[in-house]
């Protein structure tokens, strides 16, 4: 493992990703602002969750951090290295230290390749091990993720969804990365199996001191895995905080609405939901001012929200909110 510098393992500064969105040949170019100025850092060994509805830009941000999608502008530091300044050879070397696990384990495994081979492949590509050494390592990895090593010769379709996701995790871990982007890693799994995989990820993080960027739409899962949470809306972070204060007392009206909308598996709890009007606007044509003002239920909402975009401000230590009225947050609906 390389020398590590002090400070965060990953620091994202003012990251922007705009996709061209012109539909007509001679029209003025327009852009879909998928990620629009995001600043976020991850300390070693912590899990930062990125939450938001579809279209919020959370997956694009995750892909940008690994340069699977090339950002439009901004800076990404990985252990003191400016990731976006690296040439392709240096980038390949750095990729050994950062990996991704996808939502759909079936879609990310080659259906014609035995799952053991899929886990061994990165070892050979990165010239870490080959032959018997590589096979032994694959068997160890299988055990570490809770799979019987006899399954190495199986093909993806012969495994259950949970087993496939374990293979995806073993493959990502094979080259001993320090940082994993987990893009909805348990969303496709059944509830009874989801908990097993969540616990596996937590255990691996402790034993290997891994740093996770956990992308998810399920706020209940996030509460159980995250150290810190960043809530995204239309390509921007609207609130960023440690997990306990964020869930106990959300300061942004979007966070409050999102949390109140999550159903609770208890028929005696009749929660008052903040039901948001309308739907998330198109990132092609985001509203002026505060991007959330078109749906905002905050009683203090006024003309200023429709013209001035609120900056992400640090209200308390490690507690950032982009709302003009963050000092007067909406009351949490009584349970």
């Amino acid at each position, binding site marked *: 493992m390389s020398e590590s510098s002090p400070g965060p393992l990953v620091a994202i500064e003012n990251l922007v990703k705009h996709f061209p969105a012109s539909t007509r040949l001679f029209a003025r170019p327009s852009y879909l602002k998928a990620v629009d100025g995001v600043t976020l850092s991850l300390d070693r060994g912590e899990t930062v969750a990125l939450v938001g*509805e579809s279209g919020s830009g959370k997956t694009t941000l995750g892909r940008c951090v690994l340069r699977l999608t090339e950002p439009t502008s901004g800076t990404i530091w990985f252990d003191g290295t400016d990731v976006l300044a690296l040439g392709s050879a240096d980038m390949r070397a750095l990729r050994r230290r950062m990996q991704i696990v996808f939502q759909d384990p079936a879609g990310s495994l080659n259906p014609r390749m035995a799952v053991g081979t899929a886990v061994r492949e990165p070892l050979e590509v990165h010239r870490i091990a080959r032959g018997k050494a590589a096979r032994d390592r694959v068997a160890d990895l299988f055990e570490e993720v809770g799979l019987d090593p006899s399954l190495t010769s199986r093909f993806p379709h012969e495994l259950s969804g949970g087993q496939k996701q374990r293979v995806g995790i073993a493959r990502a871990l094979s080259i001993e990365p320090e940082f994993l982007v987990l893009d909805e890693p348990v969303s496709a799994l059944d*509830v009874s199996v989801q908990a097993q995989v969540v616990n596996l990820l937590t255990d691996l993080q402790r034993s290997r001191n891994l740093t996770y960027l956990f992308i998810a739409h399920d706020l209940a899962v996030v509460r159980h895995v995250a150290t810190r949470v960043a809530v995204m809306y239309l390509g921007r972070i609207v609130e960023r905080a440690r997990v306990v204060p964020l869930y106990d007392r959300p300061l942004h009206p979007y966070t409050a609405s*999102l949390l109140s909308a999550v159903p609770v598996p208890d028929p005696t709890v009749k929660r008052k939901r903040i039901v948001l009007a309308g739907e998330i606007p198109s990132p092609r044509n985001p509203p002026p001012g505060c991007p959330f003002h078109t749906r905002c239920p905050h009683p203090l909402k006024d003309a200023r929200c429709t013209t001035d975009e609120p900056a992400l401000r640090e209200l308390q230590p490690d507690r950032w909110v982009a709302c003009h009225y963050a000092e007067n947050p909406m009351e949490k609906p009584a349970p």
Partner: protein
Amino acid sequence: MTALLRVRHLSTSFQTEAGLVRAVDDVSFDLAEGETLGLVGESGSGKTVTALSILRLIPQPPGAFGPESRIEYDGVDLLRLPSRELRKVRGAQIAMIFQEPMSSLNPVLTVGSQISEAIRAHEPVSRKEANDRAVELLDLVGIPEPGRRFRDYPHQMSGGMQQRVMIGMALSCRPKILIADEPTTALDVTIQAQILDLLLELKERFAMSVLFITHDLGVLAGVADRVAVMYGGSIVEQGPVRAVFEQPAHPYTRGLLHAVPRVDRPSDRIEGIPGSVPTATAWPSGCRFHPRCSECMKRCEVDAPPSYSAGTDHTARCWLLDQSEGQRQ
């Protein structure tokens, strides 16, 4: 309350390359007037096949119903009704909405014309009259500017709006029963909240009975009066929603309730159920939950348990509930 729909010993099998596969096995339940029955289960548990069987939307072959199977609606067995008669029930008396509205809507017709067509398929009204009612229905399900959106094509609408259209279409003939198969699973949580509110409101307004199929115990807790838990093609527990959540009688139900993370309370660790969800091509012997059950006994590996009482209107299929002498091991 009287049962509007009575499902008895429903078994649905499919002829596949792997042989005969029994996806639904001896399922019985009642749906009372005005109640919402939540059918909950994980993938492959048989909940969707159960719903499709009620409306006989299972192609035969490869599908087939067991000889004991009966689905009684209004005193008539739908499984033995001639197709012509069945068509008068489908849509008009029992309507269904699905998880993916986009795959149920015709992409090349406007949403308004599709609703209008559904009305005219069941009622002898003029096109003009049907169109007017379609606009009213779009308004009813909360689509803004219904007169204008009538002429929209499905792709011009968001997922939430498409699901509203599906609900409008399902309600076009004022059905007595609405079968909702994972109607909010593909939606974001804020939109899910809107659609659930809409469904509850319309259910009250039209005094419908609802069979609500979901994998989400949170959604279930919010909508259901009674709950039926499916596992391995059978209903393993059935009862009033509070009883099932507060005193779950089947080890699978208990495991499921422990496995679901909660947004309203912190915890360091959630406990999953070991093993994998079984598939119909290889059901385990005996009780189908036995390979994953922490309380498994010898007999569970061999014999499938019958249904035992676990309280008022509350049953579970588990040998642990067997009170007969000398049976507990």
